[in-house]
């Protein structure tokens, strides 16, 4: 395989809190190839968004700090470069779309102006040319009469339209990597489906790699080729999507799939209780030595509480960190 576009190695992010140091990401390795959609899934507080912010180098310092590790974009370690260089990278090589399109657009500028701003910042073109490109981008994301719409303000648009504007802005400089942090959570189902279709289409056209952050296994299944499951800042399982969905090996992954009432193809009168993952994500300042999931795991062994499980390979590109696999073989 070719060299990865993005390679995260042994990343560790810490936050100082009143209760001590919280390790929000620990020992994270992720590699991402051009043209790929990688899903990152987990509950809130599992470090999904922190991973995205680390890639963009937007972790608030202080109280946060990137304590260890490398994040290489095509061989360039983003954690070492200057802030000036980083500003060139953001919005250009790497873009991000956020969960809430209302709060991430500026209410006092027209959407056209906001896209133009991004283009002018990164490319040495005239204002007129930038406006033309902005209208072109709005057209590409499926906004009708883009010449007129470009003059409108965010409050004049629906949630779905705003998210389209965000996507247009993110893709304006043809980034090689797009990070989508829960891009559809605030939208209606039918609009959500439209946005996902749009992202897929645009990705086919531009060949950008996408990191899709979500808590919805359904979205992962529809969009991604590979998935990383995170829990309490650690990667617990990683593999091809269909493999993970049909044959999850980590108890947390199976919990995440089983705890959501999915639409059922063969429906019967009988309804079994949903699988529950008892308890909540523990405070990250209070993690012990062992597997962070052990206190909530129904299958936990004595060993799980004492020692962090190593990563084991259980299939083609399918890796799990769990003592149960280690003990019973792949």
């Amino acid at each position: 395989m070719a060299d990865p576009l993005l390679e995260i190695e042994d990343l560790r992010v810490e936050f100082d809190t009143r209760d001590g140091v919280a390790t929000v990401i620990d020992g994270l390795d992720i590699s991402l190839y051009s043209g790929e959609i990688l899903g990152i899934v987990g509950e809130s507080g599992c470090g999904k968004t922190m991973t995205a912010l680390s890639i963009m180098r937007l972790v608030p310092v202080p109280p946060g700090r990137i304590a260890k590790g490398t994040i290489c974009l095509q061989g360039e370690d983003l954690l070492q470069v200057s802030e000036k260089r980083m500003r060139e990278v953001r919005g250009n090589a790497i873009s991000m779309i956020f969960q809430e399109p209302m709060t991430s657009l500026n209410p006092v500028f027209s959407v056209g102006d906001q896209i133009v701003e991004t283009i002018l910042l990164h490319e040495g073109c005239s204002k007129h040319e930038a406006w033309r490109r902005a209208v072109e981008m709005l057209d590409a994301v499926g906004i009708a009469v883009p010449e007129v719409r470009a003059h409108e303000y965010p409050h004049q648009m629906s949630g779905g339209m705003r998210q389209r504007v965000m996507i247009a802005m993110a893709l304006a400089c043809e980034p090689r990597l797009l990070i989508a942090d829960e891009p559809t959570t605030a939208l209606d189902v039918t609009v959500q489906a439209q946005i996902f279709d749009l992202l897929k289409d645009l990705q086919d056209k531009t060949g950008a790699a996408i990191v899709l952050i979500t808590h919805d296994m359904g979205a992962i299944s529809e969009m991604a080729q590979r998935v990383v499951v995170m829990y309490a800042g650690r990667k617990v399982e990683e593999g091809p999507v269909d493999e993970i969905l049909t044959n999850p090996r980590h108890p947390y992954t199976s919990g995440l799939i089983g705890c959501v009432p999915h639409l059922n193809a063969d429906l019967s009168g009988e309804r079994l209780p949903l699988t529950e993952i008892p308890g909540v994500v523990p405070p990250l300042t209070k993690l012990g030595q062992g597997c962070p999931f052990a206190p909530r795991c129904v299958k936990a062994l004595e060993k799980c509480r004492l020692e962090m499980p190593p990563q084991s390979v259980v299939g083609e590109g399918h890796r799990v960190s769990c003592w149960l696999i280690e003990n019973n073989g792949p």
Partner: protein
Amino acid sequence: MSKDTLLSIENLKVYFPIKKRSLSTAKSFVYAVDGIDLKITKGKTFGIVGESGSGKTTTALAVMRLVPITSGAITLGDQRLDRLQGEELRRARRHMQVIFQDPYSSLNPRVRAGAIVREPMNLMNIGDPGERDARVSDLFKKVGLRPEQQALFPHQFSGGQRQRIGVARALATQPKLVVCDEPVSALDVAIQAQILNLLRALQEEFGLTYLFISHDLGVVQYMCDEIAVMYLGKVVEQADRISLFKEPLHPYTWALLSAVLSADPALRDRSDRIRLQGDPPNPIDLPPGCRFASRCPFSEAICVAETPPLRAIHKGHAVACHLVSDDGVPPQRRR
């Protein structure tokens, strides 16, 4: 009314007037709920599903008498709710309680959890103080909290636990009807299952009747016995759980089901899914005819001209669409 029916809604309309922009413009309305009929059976869960702006929450609020009703009749048991006023209405509220969507904003941050659950009983004068204490402890146990947690404040609980407090508060007055307005959509995925399982266990134990509002079809399929699909203030399809999901008739229902992101590879790779274009139209200037016609991939001339009535196709399965044939073949099956 049959004796199994707990709540019946007849031709309910809720219109919200919009402020006039100038003297010359006519007064206009948001047609939030525009003539719906529902019957909810005792001990069952009735689901209302739809996108934002479809009127599902307004329907629930109208049942709770929390929004002014434009016209229509709402009957709970043998009591006409829509006519009640003042003290009578306040008394009737003990029979209907709500579980709200957001467990963060629906609990008073300055009141201890035990007092929050106890308050409805104080207001309704239920039992003597000793009985109320006992009932609060009992409810805490029933919803999976420890009785000593009564002394804590809401911020000391996690989101799932707060929703459990909300459930306990709703059950405190032993209501006949519990309205669940998106009870799990603000919760983390892994916590949703805990609350849904709890709601079903409590229903079994106390024979509760739920009016369940949700936009999540997976949750609705799991929870509800009977379901109404709403679009822009109208019910477009109504059926029991099995027939609605196995044989959706209305193109809108079909589109909603198609739009759900499925983790089941068999459903995901179906070829007959349809995608809707655009957003739901503005509920102020409603198009004449079928309200879905502007987004419907099958719409014909008649759809724009005439409003389709809700008509029964099979027993217990009604649909409002001109294009569904009388023997129940929907347009999406005729391609």
